[in-house]
């Protein structure tokens, strides 16, 4: 009977000790991973800042500080050249083009969303005429 109690004691102690140790190890590993991910963000932010800051400064000088601030805030407006749209929002998901009587018109599609039918619809459309934004439509 004593041996039985000793066995139960031994198993319980070992199970608890191993479990808590493993749990602690895993939590420490997770903390290290999170710390590494934080550092990776700081590094990526620095690199992006190093690249984008001179570009935005030039835009501020040549096109105006308001324009540079808009691009930094990912805000676009009619009249902006398409390059600013590319900087603020990136490449569009899809483009429709037409060329009529010397005028090149494109519709750039952003923010895709899948409908109930499984089709894709775009929540934002930007119309570009002769390389300048002429219209923005939110669907």
């Amino acid at each position, binding site marked *: 009977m004593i041996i039985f109690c000793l066995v139960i*004691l031994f198993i319980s102690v070992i199970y608890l000790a191993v479990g808590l140790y493993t749990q602690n190890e895993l939590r420490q590993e997770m903390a290290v991973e999170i710390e590494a991910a934080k550092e990776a963000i700081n590094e990526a932010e620095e690199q992006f800042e190093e690249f984008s800051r001179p570009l935005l400064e030039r835009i501020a000088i040549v096109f105006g500080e308001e324009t540079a601030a808009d691009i930094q805030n990912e805000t676009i407006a009619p009249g902006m050249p398409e390059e600013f749209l590319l*900087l603020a929002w990136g490449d569009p998901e899809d483009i429709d083009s037409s060329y009529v009587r010397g005028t090149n018109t494109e519709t750039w599609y952003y923010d895709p969303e899948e409908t109930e039918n499984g089709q894709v619809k775009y929540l934002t459309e930007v119309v570009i005429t002769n390389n300048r934004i002429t219209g923005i439509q939110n669907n």
Partner: protein
Amino acid sequence: MINYYHILGLDRDATAEDIKKAYRKLSMKFHPDKNEGDKYFEEWSKKVNAAFETLGNPSKKVGYDYALTHELEKKETAQPPSSTDDPQLALLKEIRRQLPEYYDAKNNLELARSNYERLTEQESPLIISTSKAIFCIFGIVASIAGICYLLMHGK
């Protein structure tokens, strides 16, 4: 032939006063001291200075205007200013050239942020749940109690 009027952002009928004002404004904007080490501004500063050197000097301006008029007459249709004459067009061309690197840097940043979010949203690993811990502690206490009881009554 470089169009100095385009560089200073002026029409052909600009007066000497207009030319001086445009030169002052642009030389401040593109002054290399304000933008040290930036070759883009150094280049444009030189262009602005060259434009003023010609257009700001009445005798040089006469000769330049005559040559420019003849140059423009040679062309069948009016051509839009090229990127070498227009700082805005030149900058837009520069932006296009740098877009792939810009996207790389931006994507790396977004990737790093989404990785961090994924890690922080993960639940903390739980090997020993509360119920298991209580069960183990109960087992330990019960077995110690049992051993003590048996030892006391076994004697």
